């Protein structure tokens, strides 16, 4: 039998890429439409949902990659969110003049360094955290959960000690205040910016993951770290980098969220972690695209439910998670082999 005969009819039909989950946020938005009295309210809620979703995506994407690649679940991820926000205040409060100025460029001159500072600090802390706290407990899930939880408590308390227990106000810069008017619908400027930033982060991650060698290694490593090593790659060196990147992303998310709420407080990390976990579970541990979709779904659901049934917002998120897990028990895009 020749080699040519082998492939005849031997392949499964090429399954199309799994586009179904991508449609879910659209479906949800459309499904909410009949329940919301006016279309302009719907537009406002949807944009709010998209903006919130993007911010949560930025925070959660790091966590899902870290878990997918390193099999490490950092219950202290929220600490980086809070720390990022606080670092931004260290820059923005002295530069309050630039923030209040009526010039886009001065505003940016304040915000961009603040964001960069937050990213650098959280990235560096991520490095320290990974080497000191996490490395000794690779592979031991129970200890990881306990230790990272402890780390979160300690971090939150240190923030209280250094910055005080009260909230720190973080007003939006002048050029980002207010809304665009589209007919009857008011769309907050900041939300549009948040969506753009989130999309940029998402696209950058997709580019890196799909077009670079490092991204290739990460994707392969998420599936099977052993085999990547058996091909000669010292993938553990990549772990630290990914952990730093994930922590830095959490810091960026913290800055975005702090500006969104126009205030920063030490407990914000812990509060957001519940949503982050729900998003990561829905998306599938290790999948960036899944995380993106999950974040949009959770944020949209929270906003619609917040309008329709204010008391049931968090329950709605849980129900959403349950429904999705019943459909796909390992999340929308299960990537890891675990």
């Amino acid at each position, binding site marked *: 039998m020749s*080699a040519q005969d082998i492939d005849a009819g*031997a*392949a499964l039909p090429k399954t199309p890429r799994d586009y179904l989950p991508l449609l879910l946020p659209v479906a949800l938005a459309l499904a909410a439409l009949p329940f919301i009295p006016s279309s302009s309210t719907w537009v406002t809620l949807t944009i709010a949902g998209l903006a919130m979703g993007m911010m949560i995506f930025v925070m959660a994407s790091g966590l899902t990659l870290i878990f997918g690649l390193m099999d490490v679940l950092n219950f202290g991820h929220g600490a980086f969110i809070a720390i990022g926000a606080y670092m931004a205040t260290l820059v923005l409060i002295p530069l309050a003049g630039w923030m209040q100025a009526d010039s886009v460029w001065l505003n940016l001159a304040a915000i961009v360094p603040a964001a960069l500072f937050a990213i650098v600090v959280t990235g560096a802390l991520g490095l320290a955290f990974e080497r000191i706290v996490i490395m000794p407990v690779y592979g031991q899930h129970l200890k990881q959960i306990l230790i990272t939880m402890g780390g979160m408590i300690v971090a939150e308390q240190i923030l209280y000690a250094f910055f005080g227990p009260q909230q720190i106000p973080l007003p939006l810069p002048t050029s980002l205040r207010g809304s665009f008017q589209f007919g009857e619908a008011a769309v907050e400027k900041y939300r549009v910016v948040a969506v753009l930033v989130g999309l940029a982060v998402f696209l950058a991650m997709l580019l890196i993951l799909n077009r670079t060698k490092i991204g*290739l290694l990460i994707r392969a490593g998420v*599936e099977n770290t052993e*085999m990547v*090593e058996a091909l000669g790659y010292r993938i553990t060196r990549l772990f630290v980098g990914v952990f730093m990147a994930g922590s830095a992303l959490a810091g960026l998310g913290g800055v975005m969220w702090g500006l969104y709420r126009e205030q920063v407080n030490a407990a914000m990390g812990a509060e957001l972690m519940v949503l982050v976990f729900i998003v990561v579970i829905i998306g599938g541990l290790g999948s960036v695209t899944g995380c993106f979709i999950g974040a949009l779904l959770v944020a949209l659901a929270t906003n619609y439910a917040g309008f329709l049934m204010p008391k049931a917002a968090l329950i709605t998120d849980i129900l959403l998670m349950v429904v999705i897990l019943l459909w796909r028990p390992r999340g929308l895009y299960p990537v890891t082999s675990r």
Partner: protein
Amino acid sequence: MSQLLTLSGVETHIGRYHILHGVELAVSEGKTTMLLGRNGAGKTTTLRTIMGLWRASNGEIRFAGVRIDTLGTPDIARAGIGYVPETMAVFSDLTVKENLVLAAREGAMDQTRLDWVFGFFPPLKKFWLSRAGTLSGGQKQMLSFARAFIEERKLLLIDEPTKGLAPAIIGALIDCLKEVKRRGATILLVEQNFRVAQEIGDTVSVMDNGRVVHSGTMAELARDDALQHRLLGLSLDTHQ
């Protein structure tokens, strides 16, 4: 004929289980050594220990004279050892192309080499840009092989490549192995299919209960029915 790979007194523990109890094994350069034995004899564990995926708790493993049992898996691979695991371990989310790009490690893939691989495994060319997860079992095995051969390796560790595959595909794999042999590769092959063993194997080591209990030439074992029965519990002929 130098011994490319030697194991002396290798023991491996996994958790509380003592799997390898002092393995003595030698693989001669340029030859194909078959590693046979019942299920659970420790064949896969031996390959994984050589590859550093499990740490040997005792003993020595030398490759081209250098101790590798103390090295990490990436360094062992870089020393020139290729590994085709029992589970194939293709990266499902990556395309065939990306799987091979990863395997080629340093530079771009050598086109001549790639054509050679396509020659044995045409489906890989056909599904070049398809995700490896969509391939059939036999095609995944081809990919797993191709990853090992895409670059020249000094030693190939192959774990039960023909398990569960159709005869046509097994034929392609055998052709490939023969060609690789002809080019002078050294192979350590775990295989339960006797036809494959006979066609390719030069020497044989049989394992039982975590030890090598017999070493000799293939021809010798194939001739001796009584020996076969004693070592493997049944005649190799019926192992089809």
